[in-house]
Structures are given as C-alpha cells and as structure tokens.
C-alpha cells in the first residue's frame, strides 16, 4: 500500500474514530496521517479531521477520518457524525479496563447511527505499556470475534500496527465495495452514504466513485 497523491483519488471512505476520552484516538490519527505522536496532545472538543490517500491495488482511496471527542456528555453531538461512515475504529486503552468495559455501549451507539454494513475494528491502543496492561489480548479478541469486529492491538507511540489497523479497515471496505460493484448493474448510481455531511459533492465522475455499502 503506497501513498497516492493527495488530490488524485478514485474513492472516498469516511472513517470515524470513536472510544473513551484519553485512549489515544487523536494520536493514532496523527501517527497515520502525519507520522507524528505527541505526549501532550490537546483535548479534542467536538470533532477534528484528517485525510490520507492510499493505494489499494490500482485504486487510490482517500480516507476521510473524523476524530471525535470521547466525552460521554458529548455523545449526543458526536453520534450525529457517524452518519455516512463506512468504517470505524473503536479504540480502547488496554491499560484501563474501564475504557474496554464500555465498548459494547459504543458499538450500539455506532450501529444506531452509522450505515448498517459499516466495517468496525476494535483497537486496543497503548500496547507499548505492556506492564500496565489491564485488558488481556484474548479477552478483547474473543469479544471482537463474537461481535463480528476486526481486532488489533496498536501503539500510536511506537507505531506498532497503526498503519496495519487503518490499512486493514480500508481494505475490508474496499473489498465490500468491489463486491457490491460487481453485483450492481448500475455502478454509476452508487454513492457514499446518502449525500449528507462529510460527503464530497464532487464531480459526476468522482461521485460515481464514492461508495455506499
């Protein structure tokens, strides 16, 4: 998977980053889009955005990533941002069991507001802090399996699996899209979501390449 040039892409996939406050969503994103990590990144209020275009085979896929605030109280606001998302990384901090214990609630919230066929990956972040681990890998893996989620443990700090996590989600979306395209006789009518916020209105050509699952 290589980097495509920023403005030259065939597909736009909206991906949301969700999970409790302080689990490292913003750092995962900055590691993936800018290869940066900050020990003291600022609290996210509301939502922030980043993009990165990657090559999947011959197709350039632009990941449009919505980094949402983790605060419980903000849930009513941020859940609106799930609309039209075709991928999600549900992040917890593997050194804080509480952030894992509420994963089910996050999942429900996500399915209530996002596309039904959204690709979701459960991400246990901070794998560099193995001495402080509170969530056993197998437990989280089992939960993911039982709920039909992808699963990876990452470290935004030392970069472990960060690329792989985003890459896997994007590939999975891409596979679904390709399959759908084969099944669809009117490929040109396929759009990402249903023309809501986050949608690149684009030209006819680009619109034709935006996908809903």
């Amino acid at each position, binding site marked *: 998977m290589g980097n495509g040039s920023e403005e030259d892409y065939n597909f736009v996939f909206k991906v949301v980053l969700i999970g409790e406050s302080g689990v490292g969503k913003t750092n995962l994103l900055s590691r993936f889009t800018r290869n940066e990590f900050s020990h003291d990144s*600022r*609290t996210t*209020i509301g939502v922030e955005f980043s993009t990165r275009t990657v090559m999947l085979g011959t197709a350039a896929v632009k990941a449009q990533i919505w980094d949402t605030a983790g*605060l*419980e*109280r903000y849930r*009513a*606001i941020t859940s609106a941002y799930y609309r039209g998302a075709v991928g999600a990384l549900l992040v917890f901090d593997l050194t804080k069991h509480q952030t894992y214990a509420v994963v089910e609630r996050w999942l429900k919230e996500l399915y209530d507001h996002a596309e039904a066929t959204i690709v979701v990956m459960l991400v246990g972040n901070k794998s560099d802090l193995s001495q402080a681990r509170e969530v056993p890998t197998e437990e989280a893996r089992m939960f993911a399996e039982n709920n039909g989620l992808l699963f990876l443990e990452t470290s935004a700090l030392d970069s472990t699996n960060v690329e792989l996590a985003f890459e896997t989600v994007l590939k999975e979306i891409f596979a679904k899209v390709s399959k759908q395209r084969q099944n669809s006789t009117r490929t040109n009518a396929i759009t990402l979501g249903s*023309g809501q*916020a986050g949608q690149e209105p684009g030209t006819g050509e680009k619109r034709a390449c935006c996908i809903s699952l």
Partner: protein
Amino acid sequence: MEYEDKAGRPSKPPSPKQNVRKNLDFEPLSTTALILEDRPANLPAKPAEEAQKHRQQYEEMVVQAKKRELKEAQRRRKQLEERCRVEESIGNAVLTWNNEILPNWETMWCSKKVRDLWWQGIPPSVRGKVWSLAIGNELNITHELFDICLARAKERWRSLSIGGSEVDYEDAGSSAADREASLELIKLDISRTFPNLCIFQQGGPYHDMLHSVLGAYTCYRPDVGYVQGMSFIAAVLILNLDTADAFIAFSNLLNKPCQMAFFRVDHSLMLTYFAAFEVFFEESLPKLFAHFKKNNLTPDIYLIDWIFTLYSKSLPLDLACRIWDVFCRDGEEFLFRTALGVLKLFEDILTKMDFIHMAQFLTRLPEDLPAEELFASIATIQMQSRNKKWAQVLTTLQKDSRETEKGSPSLRH
C-alpha cells in the same frame, strides 16, 4: 573564458547566500568576503581592463550594501518607535483604566469612550480585574464558599486515592461512579490544557490552581460536573486572576445562558444557537453561506470547539484574550460575531475548498492569525438581520423550537 567566469562570479548575486542574508539582522560585512583583492600567485594576472571592471562592480556592491544597511536601520528605528508607541499607549491605557474607569465602574463602563478603549484590548495588568467586574457575581460566591467547595473536593480526592468506596456522596444528580470518572477526567484533561505552555501540567506552577478551580466547581455544581472545554476556560482565567477570583468568574461565566446550554449539552438549545448563527451568517456572508450549504458543512462542526472553549483552544492565546475582552463587554453575541469575522477573513480561501478541506481548516485555524486583521474583519460584521438583533432572533427561534419540537430533537445534517 573559464577565468573570466570565475572572476566574474562576485558580480552575480551568490544565490545560496542570498537566503542567509535575508535572515541576518546586520549585513554590510558580508560583501567584503567577496572582494578578490589579488589573484593567487599561481594564476596569471588579470588584464587591466577586467580588473578595472571588477573594481567598479565591487564599488557598486558596496554602495548597494550601504543602502540596504541604511534602509534596515530605518526599518528598525521605525519598529522601535512603533513599539514605544504601543507601549506608551498601553501605559496610558493602564492609567486610564486604573485611575478613571475602575474607580467609577458602574457609571463609566458603558460609555462610548470606555467601549472604544475596550475594543482595542484591555492591558494585561488590569485584564483580570475588568473581566471580573464585567462578568459580575450574580451567584454571590464568596471566597469562603470557594474554600468550602475546595475542601470538599480535596476530601474526595483523598478518599479516592485511598480507594474508599464507601464515601458518603450526599449530592444528588450524579452517581458516585460518574463523579469518580469526572475527577479522573479532570486529571486527564489538565495535562492536555495548553500543553505547549508547560505550566498547567503536573509539576507546573499553575497545575494545582487549575485542579482546584475545576475540582471545586464539580462540588459547587454537581449537576453540571466537569465537561471537556472547561479546563481551557478555567486556565485562561487563572492566567489573569488569583485562584478564588478565578473560581468566582468561572462559575458566573458558566452560568450565562449560552455557556449553560453548551456545558449541559442541552441539545435542542444548542441547535437553536446554531440556527440563530446561521440567520446572521446568511445575512452577512450570503455567498459563503451558500457554499457551506452546498457542501453540507453545518455550523456545529466548527462552532462547538469555538464556543465550548471561547476560542482559547483555536486562536493564539493573546488573540483569544482579546476576544474574551469584548465577549465580556458584549456577551454571547460576540462569540458568534467573532465566528462570522473568522469566516469573512478567510472567505476567499474557503469558497475554493470542498467539505473536508473547509472542515480541516476551520477546526485547525492558521497559527499566525493576525489580530488586527481579525478585529478589522469582526468590526465589519453587523449583527443585524432585517432590523432584528441577536437576542431577538434567538428568542424567536427558541419560541419556535419550543412550539414545534415536542419530539426529541437531533443534530441532523
């Protein structure tokens, strides 16, 4: 030919050096390095004509250098004069605020003269005092009350740190688990409040003050508790006031209708504020408004961060303080006027962007946003819509939403 080339080089501007030169404060000596006084002994002597030409070129360069030097000196003198002027005017402003305005606050604060001075920015040395007076103390909070709330907060921290789960939480409104999470969250957020200043983090000089104000507030208003965004507001106040006065200003500030709506995450009321904002947006910047609509860029995407933190997270701190100055003078309306000022300032760039670029731009504004340009832009925004003012528009919309929305509202795009 080759010799000529080499010898001729000094007359051309040496390009890599040019960049370096621009960064130097002082530069005349740099030209002397380029004189080729005499050739090395192993090379044939220059023809007289060529030597003459080079001398001439050299002299021209010296003249140029002197000119530049003079210009630079003039520029620096001007800069110094400008700084003196600014310092003098700040000095004068401090005198005016201290000797004339503050002692006669009640009668003077709404006069035209004071309002004009206010717009130019309150001098940092009186800023805290003015903010306190302007925010007021409707809640009648005393220093003693702060001490009581703080003592309670400290008790809770202690009992949490020794793992006491049987602490008696007498306050209604939220469960013990919520409160524990709230204290955890404060700890987490303090380290993420103005991290680049390195003063609020653990071990930093303002860490305990910020912790105290936020902790005391969760005891004072358990029904509101701690909400992200608060740490930024408390931090800005702490930079300008002592702890107890910062707490008083903080509590009263959060008690204002707009702040209460946001910090309680009163969804339908927030939507009403966004709707009111859009009325003025369409009126002031119709072209950009249409562009946003076309791209489905809703105001919540950028306003939430701006309103929750009163711009302290999104603008450079000194500029944010100037926004706070006028916010204290004009109230919530100014927060939305500022938003329009920002949008207007960047209208040309924004109209060329698509959804994602606009969203990225607005949630991460340029770090070098110039204060004077922003204020000039804000000044051109008239908060008038068909002769209606902000408060009127907001009231009408609130009435509408109460009448029409019986069901649960949602933030739909």
